[in-house]
């Protein structure tokens, strides 16, 4: 008998989005069970139902053959189900053990025996070999170590089933390998691991069984043998994945030139970018690799103009933009921001209004002294939406009803059809499904071949390797390496990112 049995799970999000369509999932004791699928396939919804965060529309869950109702996470925890989210839920100023016992404090007369608590936590850490000091303050830990703390927290709560939602998204290749070792060790101690990822090589490396979801339905659950990444991808997207190939780049004249750029943080006055020099020429893709939070965001923001540099120069098409307002910069730069909901779109405005942003500064959309030429705007938006394959019903519709992939296509369509030579891309495919990712990567290459100068910031090393013609590695706000990706392997770059080599 299976340990956890979810059967005929349905979830319809109001008004009519079918997220799960009769999905079955069974988990055995002591197995690593991966759930793969494109974004929107229902992976997160399924595990969130198991963790009690989302109420299913219908369906039942059995644990050890007994029917259970899980209506909130604390009930899930009582049943031994724990989950580590993509965003960590830790208090940075608290020590490791304080974070771990939070909500589960064992006290006498309202007093916590901190020494004893720290000791208990350290015992668990040592038992599973995590190598973290329970007395360290969380803010001083690396991202990978914080993730360990999250896992330990679940173990402290006596989790028997551990759900990991895309745990490797924030890790370097080396850190991922370490995580896999720990997961395997947990499995050896009888824990059940539910591993969610869209990186198929990782899934194939560690899973015992794999459940494939597509469009809210379970395609299959299979043993991890005699299956390879290509077959798995085919099951996920329902067709063959075509390989992206690219031609040799033909760089032209320099379009973006950054000289001695330094940026200081407003809060701490520390240098977050120091003496950065880089250039992007027409017809090439220049990638920026680095562990997140090493200055990539500040670099992009100083190019776009939301951050004022402390010193240095930013020159686009021979125009010095170092002190220019955003409005002036946007007459020279196409920009896809990393968070489409934060600054890429107005989700409650219409599609048309979203598509015309920045274009409205152009003379061709002016009508008379003040008015905007809405007719022209409409025909441009319609044409762009078709050209970029956006699935939508009407331009009066709000982007909030579109899927993530289509929302991103709206941003990309708008920015690419601006037609300026410099294109700045910050995580252009983050959170997108395979098909949309592939589509957008192709577009980026097309743009390069059309002679655009492209700066690509991405946390996805595969993406950088696949697309970039040149690659800079950034660490602690400094450019630490300048690499030809066709001549380097992913581990070398990972070493630069971590600062293992200099």
């Amino acid at each position, binding site marked *: 008998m299976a340990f956890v049995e979810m059967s005929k799970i*349905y979830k*319809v*999000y*109001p*008004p*009519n989005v*079918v997220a799960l*369509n*009769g999905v079955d999932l069974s988990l055995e004791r002591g197995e690593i069970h991966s759930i793969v699928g494109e974004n929107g396939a229902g992976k997160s919804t399924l595990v969130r139902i198991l963790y009690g965060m989302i109420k299913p*529309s*219908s369906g039942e869950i059995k644990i050890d053959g007994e029917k259970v109702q899980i209506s909130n996470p604390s009930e899930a925890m009582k049943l031994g189900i724990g989950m580590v989210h993509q965003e960590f839920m830790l208090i940075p100023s608290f020590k490791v053990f304080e974070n771990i016992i939070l909500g589960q404090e064992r006290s006498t007369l309202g007093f916590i025996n901190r020494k004893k608590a720290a000791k208990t936590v350290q015992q668990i850490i040592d038992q599973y070999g995590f190598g973290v000091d329970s007395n360290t303050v969380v803010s001083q830990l690396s991202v990978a170590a914080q993730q360990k703390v999250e896992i330990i927290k679940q173990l402290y709560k006596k989790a028997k089933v551990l759900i990991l939602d895309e745990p490797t998204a924030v890790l370097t290749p080396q850190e991922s390998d370490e995580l896999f070792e720990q997961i395997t060790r947990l499995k050896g101690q009888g824990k059940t691991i539910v591993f969610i990822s869209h990186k198929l090589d990782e899934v194939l490396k560690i899973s015992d069984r794999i459940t494939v979801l597509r469009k809210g339905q379970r395609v299959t659950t299979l043993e991890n043998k005699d299956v390879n990444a290509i077959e798995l991808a085919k099951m996920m997207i329902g067709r063959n994945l075509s390989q992206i190939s690219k031609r040799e780049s033909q760089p032209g004249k320099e379009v973006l030139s950054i000289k001695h750029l330094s940026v200081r943080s407003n809060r701490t006055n520390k240098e977050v970018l120091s003496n950065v020099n880089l250039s992007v020429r027409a017809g090439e893709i220049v990638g920026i690799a680095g562990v997140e939070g090493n200055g990539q965001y500040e670099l992009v923001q100083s190019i*776009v103009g*939301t951050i004022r540099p402390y010193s240095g120069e930013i020159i686009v098409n021979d125009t010095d933009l170092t002190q220019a*307002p*955003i*409005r002036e*910069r*946007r*007459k020279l730069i196409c*920009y896809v*921001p990393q968070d489409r909901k*934060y*600054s*890429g*779109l*107005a*989700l*409650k*405005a219409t599609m048309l*209004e979203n598509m*015309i*942003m*920045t274009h*409205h*500064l152009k003379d061709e*959309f*002016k009508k008379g002294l*003040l*008015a*905007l030429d*809405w007719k022209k705007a409409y025909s441009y938006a319609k044409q762009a939406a078709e050209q970029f394959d956006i699935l939508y019903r009407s331009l009066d519709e709000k982007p909030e009803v579109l899927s993530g992939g289509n929302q991103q296509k709206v941003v990309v369509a708008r920015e690419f059809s601006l037609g300026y030579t410099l294109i700045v891309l910050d995580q252009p495919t983050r959170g997108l499904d395979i098909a949309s990712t592939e589509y957008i990567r192709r577009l980026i290459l097309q743009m390069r071949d059309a002679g655009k100068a492209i700066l690509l910031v991405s946390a996805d090393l595969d993406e950088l390797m696949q697309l970039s013609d040149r690659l800079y590695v950034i660490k602690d706000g400094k450019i630490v390496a300048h690499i030809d990706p066709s001549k380097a392997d992913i581990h070398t770059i990972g070493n630069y990112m971590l600062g293992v080599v200099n």
Partner: protein
Amino acid sequence: MKIFRRVIISLLSIASAFLICAILIKIQRNSPIEVYKALYAYGLGSWFSLSSTLNTATPLIFTGVSAAVAFASGVINLGQHGQLLMGAILTAILGVYLNLPGLIGIPVLVVFGGFAGALWAGVAAVLKKFYRMDEFISTLMLNFIAEYFTIYLATYPFLDKKAYVPATRLIKRIYFMPDVSGLSLAFFVAIFSALISYWYIKKTRSGYELRMMGHNINFARIGGCSVELNTTLVLLLTGFLSGLAGGLLILGGTQHRFMKGIGANFGWDGVMIAIIANNSIIETLFYGLFFGALKNGAIGMEFETAVPSEFILLLQAVIVLVVVGARSAIEYYTQWIRSLAKLKKVVSGND
């Protein structure tokens, strides 16, 4: 379709608000039918009632549109009351001392009223631009300063010595706003201003930027909109609209002078109307007229029945709650019902 649905929701909510209040009237042993009859007769029933309703609605339309434009742009201007008072006091003073022929004088005085309102809102704009002070709090506080500053002006330097209450002198007769058998031309200025505002916010490039700021300010900023300049612009523009309300209250109202309490509750009613109208200018126009009718009808209701005119405040409040509540509740439940139907379809499709 969407517009149709919105109209239906509004009508149903208003009807249920009247129903709820009918019960309250009944509990107090009055006849709801009599009360509503009087409300209708004095609000809309005759040309006299209708024209005074439209006159009452005039300042509401201005302050309502002012609030709607500001809120739709993500600028929380809550200073309509103060801006209206500043417009009124300047127009009232200039109306006494300025020597111009009526035909030129009236528009000049009205525009000066607008400028006074814009300038008062401009104080908040300056505080925002140079000291990063939230306009939400600064416009609110400026209301109090305007209130007492205008009372001071009407009590000391510009006091009409013959008046029994703090009031300025009567403005020159040539500056009285002409009317069409009781309906002041000020009403048409209000309609015209509302339509211009509608055009500006819906059709112009600047209006587009403003609305996008209201939706998502980061989106607008990154997209190249002049966010800072636009914020200043909105404050000045909406201050101007409120100032116009004040100026026209002096020229077109009944007193033709600045008196204590002349601003009544127009500022806050405007904010309320904009909220009910979901910041849509056309809806603001209609709710302005509707609340004008209620206010006017209230007077008649007090005449004819034992229900005091303050009862209208209760009715207003119930309407606000029901309209705003119904809007989100209906949205929520239709979606919920649709999701259930979809679930049924999906489940049966699998079997």
